[in-house]
């Protein structure tokens, strides 16, 4: 109630200011009259009484001021005055204002853009109902170094049956489909999901409905489309619900469409991370349900029951692991090599954000440094301005302005600058965020809904206020606090004023240089890593290689022989196309993670876990096409087929690891006990089978034609039904793609050829992450360098103007222009040197953060440190040169006369 009254009164005073002032005036007047009347009554003359009464009252203006300052509205009013005054002074020096606002806008904008991404990726909860209770379950054999394994079907059904910690559990599995029926056949990434998944996530479809539990069974062909696919392929027609589409040449009924920003699975986890374009019921087949120890490729999502803690769920997971292990058939259990099976539980969000957290944190630190540098830059500008305004400030102090009042006014000016910068920064951020997302590699999850939320707006506002304090406080404190007499005296002579100002400015510029150096070193390290990645010898020759995937759906190719037949014909016919040098097929391409298989090596006792080795099935002249060199023995020939003795080609690394100092040719290995031995017939060079920054692994190659019928025709894993065709061309490989596709379609017009690409493009996309890191950090570093150069230029230019007198005397005493030049340049580089020392120390501490992002370069790489420091000193020298030149042109006579 009193608050309300105060508010009402205050508002009245604000809006009826004149009336309130008049009333106060009247009241004071009546006071004087009453006082005079009293004095007359006491015996004074009228005139005397009036004078005495006035004297008694004192200064009416002071009283009025006191009365006015009682209400809160007065504070508001002086703020208004400060803002108006600040606007006026800023308008008076447009050059300063524009530079300061732009600098801050870039700093704040970059921060806001990155923050909006970080906010969505790291800080926002997952876009599902009550997301903090959503967990991911894995299987794990921690004792043999496999802490996180995706689930197998029988293990999942056991968990689903007996767990108590979760209110629902469900499985998700990537599955590629050939989508046809309406329009061109197309390959789409889809997912099989349990019927429980959609209700668990609590996202409603925009059209239609989800799967019913009874539809989660084989033979129930229903599908839910993603918004993107619905728009892209079906033009957003609402009538799509109820229509049939063909998936792998089988009819499925569309029953629903999900909303625009719904993504499932989410990227991040080690398996099943490809966002699906459509979802079908999981509908386990009986073979899958019986497939003990066969395939571990399900992602399990679960919603924690109310009142159950993560800790409780984890201990139940351990117990369930033991229970499942007890159910395992004995012959499979030996594959655990004595390790205990556990079921680790992780919050889903951790799984999603974990992989990108280090990168985003490094970028956030970098962009924060840019803002600090921008602040330091504006602070130096403010100090220069303060020196110019010293006279004004001294006068205002002499007239009775208190230090705090002046401080408030100067800070209002900074705040105004920062808010202007923040506003402009917001625009930049809006644009920059889209650029950021366009550049971002797919490793960063959820980019499509990195919206510009209220959080980002609040962030900009907060950042603006904070920066205003950061860059405004020191100069304002210094300016407002300057000793009264001293300032008035100093203000007369510009020379002496500069000493303290220079101290501040020098400190700011040195800090700026130090921070820039940190950024430049960070960027330098990433660039050097990226260079190393680019120049890595991949073990094959990627140029002129065209690659595409030729998937054969089980419905049209149920038999292994049909698959072999088509691929074999392809491998034979494509090389005879004009312009083709060689062609071959493989189940996976270099750089795109190979499938790992366990192996048993003859004559080598099984100790612990058998080696997991990358294996590629090849057909035709794959080695010649990729130009993977043959080191010993022979390559596969057309004689290595189904009924001929099984053979294998190994990589050099494999030979060195398992048969050191021996000739591996003729040695034998096999996948499992009951499978035939394969004889090593050749040794080829090592290649990078995974991402470029991963060390090379031992690798084996087996002839596709020697795969068993079961493996070849197998549907679920789908590897053998989806071989890659690699073609070495004479000219630009991309230009040959239509001829090659036509050749495939001449064998089967319905094959949906997928992922048509070239090997250089595969390399380039495998480097997208490092390239993104390097270019973004370089952008920030370049900006920082630019700001620092401006900073050092500004300080020196200001100092040269201020010290014209001193320079004039020196020249009058016989200093040559080159002496003056040297003197100013030395000054500039001294600042940069001080900054560099500070920067190197800071960088040594900070670059450790980015160890995980580096490849082939130490976080303390001396070459980067030295090179970047030299670059920075060079830029400082360059930026000092213009003011130095100006100093040499000082005419001693004019300079001396100026004083």
């Amino acid at each position, binding site marked *: *109630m*009193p608050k309300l*009254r*105060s508010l009402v*009164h205050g508002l009245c005073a604000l809006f009826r200011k004149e009336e309130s002032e008049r*009333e*106060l005036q*009247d*009241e*004071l007047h*009546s*006071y004087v*009259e*009453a*006082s005079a*009347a*009293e004095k007359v009554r006491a015996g004074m003359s009228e005139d005397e009484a009036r004078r005495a009464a006035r004297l*008694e*009252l*004192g200064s009416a203006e*002071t*009283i009025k001021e*006191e*009365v006015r*300052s*009682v*209400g809160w509205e007065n504070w508001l009013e002086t703020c208004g005055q400060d803002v108006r005054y600040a606007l006026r002074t800023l308008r008076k020096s447009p050059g300063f204002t524009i530079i300061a606002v732009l600098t801050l806008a870039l700093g704040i904008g970059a921060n806001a853009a990155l923050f909006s991404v970080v906010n969505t990726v790291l800080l926002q909860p997952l876009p599902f109902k009550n997301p903090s209770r959503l967990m991911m379950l894995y299987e794990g054999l921690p004792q043999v170094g496999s802490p996180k394994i995706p689930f197998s079907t029988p293990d999942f059904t056991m968990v689903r049956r007996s767990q108590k910690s979760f209110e629902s559990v469900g499985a998700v599995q990537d599955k590629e489909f050939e989508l046809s029926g309406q329009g061109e056949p197309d390959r789409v990434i889809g997912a099989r999901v349990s019927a429980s998944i959609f209700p668990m996530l609590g996202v409603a479809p925009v059209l239609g409905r989800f799967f019913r539990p009874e539809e989660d069974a084989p033979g129930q062909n229903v599908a839910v489309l993603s918004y993107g696919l619905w728009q892209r392929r079906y033009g957003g027609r609402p009538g799509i619900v109820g229509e049939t589409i063909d998936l792998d040449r089988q009819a499925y009924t569309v029953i629903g469409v999900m909303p625009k920003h719904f993504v499932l699975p989410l990227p991040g986890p080690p398996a099943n991370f490809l966002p699906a374009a459509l979802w079908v019921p999981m509908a386990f087949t009986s073979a899958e349900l019986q497939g003990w120890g066969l395939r571990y490729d399900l992602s399990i999502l679960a919603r924690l029951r109310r009142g159950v803690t993560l800790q409780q769920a984890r201990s139940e997971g351990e117990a369930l692991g033991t229970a499942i292990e007890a159910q395992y058939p004995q012959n499979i259990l030996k594959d655990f090599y004595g390790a205990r099976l556990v079921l680790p539980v992780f919050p889903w969000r951790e799984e999603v954000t974990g992989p990108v957290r280090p990168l985003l944190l490094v970028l956030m630190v970098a962009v924060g440094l840019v803002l600090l540098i921008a602040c330091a830059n504006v602070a130096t500008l403010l100090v220069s301005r303060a020196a110019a305004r010293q006279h004004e400030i001294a006068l205002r102090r002499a007239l009775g302005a208190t230090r705090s009042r002046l401080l408030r006014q100067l800070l209002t000016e900074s705040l105004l600058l920062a808010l202007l910068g923040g506003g402009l920064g917001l625009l930049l951020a809006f644009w920059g965020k889209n650029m950021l997302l366009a550049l971002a590699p797919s490793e960063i999850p959820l980019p499509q809904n990195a919206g510009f939320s209220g959080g980002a707006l609040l962030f900009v506002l907060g950042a603006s206020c904070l920066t205003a304090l950061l860059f405004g406080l020191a100069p304002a404190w210094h300016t407002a606090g300057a000793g009264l007499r001293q300032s008035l005296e100093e203000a007369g002579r510009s020379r002496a004023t500069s000493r303290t100002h220079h101290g501040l400015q020098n400190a700011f510029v040195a800090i700026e240089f130090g921070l820039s150096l940190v950024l430049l070193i960070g960027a330098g390290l990433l660039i050097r890593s990226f260079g190393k990645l680019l120049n890595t010898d991949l073990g094959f020759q990627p140029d002129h290689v065209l690659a595409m995937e030729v998937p054969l759906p089980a419905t049209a190719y149920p038999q292994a022989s049909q698959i072999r037949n088509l691929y074999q014909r392809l491998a034979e016919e494509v090389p005879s196309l004009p312009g083709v040098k060689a062609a071959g097929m493989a189940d996976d391409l270099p750089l795109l993670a190979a499938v790992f298989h366990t192996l048993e090596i003859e004559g080598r006792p099984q100790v612990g876990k058998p080696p997991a080795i990358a294996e590629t099935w090849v057909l035709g002249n794959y080695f010649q096409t990729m130009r993977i060199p043959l080191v010993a023995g022979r390559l596969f020939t057309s004689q290595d087929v189904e009924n001929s003795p099984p053979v294998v080609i190994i990589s050099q690394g494999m030979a060195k690891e398992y048969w050191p100092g021996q000739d591996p040719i003729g040695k034998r290995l096999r996948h499992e006990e009951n499978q035939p031995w394969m004889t090593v017939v050749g040794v080829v060079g090592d290649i990078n089978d995974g991402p470029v920054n991963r060390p090379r692994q031992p690798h084996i190659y087996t002839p596709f034609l020697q795969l068993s019928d079961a493996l070849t025709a197998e549907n679920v894993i789908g590897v053998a039904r989806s071989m890659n065709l690699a073609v070495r061309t004479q000219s630009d490989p991309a230009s040959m793609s239509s001829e090659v596709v036509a050749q495939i379609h001449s064998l089967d017009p319905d094959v949906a050829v997928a992922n048509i690409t070239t090997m250089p493009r595969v390399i380039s996309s495998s480097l997208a992450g490092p390239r993104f890191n390097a270019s973004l950090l370089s952008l920030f570093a370049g900006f920082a360098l630019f700001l620092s150069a401006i900073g050092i230029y500004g300080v020196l230019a200001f100092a040269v103007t201020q010290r014209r007198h001193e320079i004039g005397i020196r020249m009058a005493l016989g200093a040559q222009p080159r002496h003056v030049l040297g003197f100013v340049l030395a000054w500039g580089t001294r600042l940069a040197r001080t900054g560099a020392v500070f920067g190197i120390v800071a960088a040594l501490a900070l670059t450790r953060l980015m160890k995980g992002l580096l490849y082939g370069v130490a976080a303390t790489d001396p070459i980067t440190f030295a090179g970047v420091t030299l670059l920075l000193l060079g830029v400082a020298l360059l930026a000092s040169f213009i003011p130095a030149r100006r100093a040499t042109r000082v005419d001693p006579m004019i300079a001396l006369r100026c004083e």
Partner: protein
Amino acid sequence: MPGKSKELVQGTLDMLILKTLALEPLHGYGIGLRIQQISRGVFTVNPGSLFPAFRRLERQGLIKADWRASENNRRAKYYALTEAGRKKLKYETREWQAQTRAIARILAASPGEL
């Protein structure tokens, strides 16, 4: 005026104004004069602190003002106590008396007394 007038103890001006107005509504000069008279000239009230105090008390809703003709037939702003002001005065008086009694006891304490 006998004796040397003293500045008011910090924070007591509001209470004295309220007390003065509890007797009858008064204008600004009258309030100052009344305080001086009742204290027998011990306290003089400076207009520079009087007027801000009026504004403050008015804001708090403890006093209200209206323009009336004064005793010598001029217009003057008369302040009167509100209900809230009356309560506040009562409370402040009790507090003040409790404090002065306590202070008096401390000052009167003799050695050995606990």
